[in-house]
């Protein structure tokens, strides 16, 4: 694309990625979560691909594959770790573990990041999985027509 698009894309890429990770991180106390934040980060990748082209964006397909598989494994592993009680048991919440174990008062409250047990960890796992999955879909669709001319 033109120099204007490339410059604006380069400027906006960082804030979009940071905003997506913020949405993933605060998924258990504010609106949002893993899927939404992952979609925002993937939209940043799409902006990069539109501005610089599929080859010039510097996105690695192999890295996306590894991140997506890792996110899925962390998600299922966290679900299995609760197997002392049941599958998907939240063993960290409300004083049960070492991290994310604060109690919250009933009713409206200001919100504390250090709560909700496995929910933030699962948000991160699903967020990484979704951003890698959508990013690799966009990258594959963008890479495909370029092979024709060679």
């Amino acid at each position, binding site marked *: 694309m033109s120099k204007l698009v490339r410059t604006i894309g380069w400027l906006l890429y960082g804030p979009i990625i940071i905003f997506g990770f913020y949405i993933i991180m605060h998924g258990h*106390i*504010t*609106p949002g*979560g893993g*899927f939404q934040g992952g979609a925002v980060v993937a939209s940043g990748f799409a902006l990069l691909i539109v501005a610089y082209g599929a080859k010039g964006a510097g996105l690695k397909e192999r890295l996306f594959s590894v991140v997506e598989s890792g996110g899925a494994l962390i998600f299922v592993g966290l679900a299995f770790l609760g197997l002392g009680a049941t599958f998907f048991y939240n063993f960290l919440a409300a004083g049960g573990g070492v991290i994310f174990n604060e109690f*919250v008062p009933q*009713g*409206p*409250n*200001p*919100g504390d990041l250090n709560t909700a047990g496995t929910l933030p960890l699962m948000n991160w796992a699903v967020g990484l999985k*979704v951003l890698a999955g*959508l990013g690799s*879909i966009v990258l*594959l*669709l963008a890479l*495909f*027509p370029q092979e*024709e001319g060679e």
Partner: protein
Amino acid sequence: MIANFPYVVAILLMIFGLYAALFRRNLIKIAIGITLMESGVNLFLVSLGYRRGGIAPIYTLAPEAGERMVLPTPQALTLTSIVIGLATTAVLLALIVVIYRHYGTLDADKINKLRG
């Protein structure tokens, strides 16, 4: 009937999507119609869980206690539905790209004739 107007809007969206999916020839427009139907279904599902004067089911700095919150389960399941629709659309578009590459056209009737 007028009290159910949001349901009518969601169903109209579904009908437009169905029309586009059935009577358009361009494959991209068929894909757009299927996406429209998904949007209509999601809108219908979310509007089923609305309570009059409700607030979002999130306790962080909520204006009042939980008695007036909308139902959270339809929202959670709509999230699932949205991601599944996204996956379907991705596969659909990949197939359309391959079809265009192979036949050189997006017209469904022409592709039917060329397949021969």
